[in-house]
């Protein structure tokens, strides 16, 4: 039994203008990881390394227990990968693609493929050339899902999709997770998609992982504390506070290590706590990126 579907330890890769530094990630089997970062942060590079498509300069990569890139052939039977720049053949039909993939992968599940066709509202006899962007994405995903891989790796699967198609896709990913032996890693710069279905969240910016935790811990530890100061003083920064915005006697402190002690500590210092607010993943993401960039330049 492998507990981790994906394990990256201290992975680095140097390009002329960009480097991936000390990337460590762990995705437990049976969970979904949302991999979030701005454009150019290193999401696709990380994904290509864990698939063995790009070889890392440093660090260890294990995918379903296989050491990458050395054992990538063994890993590829069990890993399904889909990305935006993956192309189906324009002149061929969906049916042709299904038959082609079935001929290669013995794990292909024809009944499931046909269910997916219906659910995704696709027609097997349609040629790829005539499909809309959303239909192409769904067709590509169908080819990967019907193989029933133990690990799904999806690079920006929801980019450019309309809300209805996005929901269809997320529903299908959620359905895959009924089987606790399967795992999914998907990257996105849309935190909303990730917030709903992910068990684990990892943020990447400028080639570094800036935070990686399970989602509930993420949402629990990040809080905004709205306070009122007793007079014309600066709000003291307590441990765990990473940002303070103050206007007159009102201030907002942001923390990434919230616990119940924090408002009490402020009250003890004579600061009146008006509210403790939870933050959306999007707010956390933006705040996190800003904080880490400030730390880098300070």
């Amino acid at each position, binding site marked *: 039994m492998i507990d981790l579907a994906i394990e990256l330890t201290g992975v680095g890769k140097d390009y002329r203008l960009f480097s991936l530094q000390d990337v460590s990630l762990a995705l437990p089997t*049976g*969970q*979904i990881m949302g991999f979030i970062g701005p454009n150019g942060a290193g999401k696709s590079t990380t994904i290509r390394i864990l698939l063995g498509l790009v070889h890392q300069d440093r660090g260890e990569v294990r995918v379903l227990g296989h050491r990458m890139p050395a054992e990538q052939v063994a890993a590829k039977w069990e890993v399904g990968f889909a990305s935006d720049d993956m192309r189906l053949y324009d002149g061929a039909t969906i049916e042709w693609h299904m038959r082609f993939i079935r001929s290669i992968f013995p794990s292909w599940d024809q009944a499931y493929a046909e269910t997916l066709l219906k659910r995704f509202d696709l027609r097997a006899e349609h040629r790829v050339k005539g499909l809309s962007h959303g239909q192409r994405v769904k067709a590509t995903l169908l080819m990967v899902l019907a193989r029933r891989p133990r690990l799904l790796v999806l690079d920006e699967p929801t980019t450019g999709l309309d809300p209805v198609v996005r*929901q269809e896709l*997320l*529903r299908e990913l*959620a*359905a895959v*997770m*009924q*089987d*606790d032996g399967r795992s999914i890693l998907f990257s996105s710069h849309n935190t909303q998609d990730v*917030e*709903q*279905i*992910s*068990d*684990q969240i990892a943020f990447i910016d400028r080639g570094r992982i800036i935070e990686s935790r*399970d*989602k*509930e811990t993420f*949402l629990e530890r990040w809080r905004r504390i709205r306070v009122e100061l007793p007079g014309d003083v600066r709000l003291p920064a307590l441990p765990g506070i990473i940002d303070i915005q103050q206007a007159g006697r009102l201030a907002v402190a942001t923390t990434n290590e919230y616990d119940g002690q924090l408002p009490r500590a402020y009250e003890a210092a004579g600061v*009146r706590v*008006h509210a403790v607010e939870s933050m959306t993943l999007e707010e956390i993401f933006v705040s996190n990126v800003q904080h880490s960039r400030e730390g880098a330049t300070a």
Partner: protein
Amino acid sequence: MYLQIMEQIRRRIAVGDLKAADPLPSIRQLAADLQISVITIKRAYLELERDGVISTQHGKGSAVAESAGLAARIYEQELEKHLAEAARLAALLGLGSRDLQRRVRDASDQLAESAKEPR
């Protein structure tokens, strides 16, 4: 996010849709149905178990707790929460406990009053 799930399950018990000892869907089933992460549902079930609202038996899944008066207790817990919040806001406004008592009485009178009015 798990708080919302807890709230939904509590509500369904409170209105009687779920009765004592009724089985709950498995964590993975509910996650797929709601399209919400497994970890969120797991956390919600864990907290509900801690509150005595549901019970989980290993290998058998989760069910609504068998204890008597569960619906009443859920409303009780909710009242408790709102009272604590009212007390906190009253303190922010600088209201004494006597003022707060008066306000609670007013609110309760108002409710009785609006119930009397013919439709």
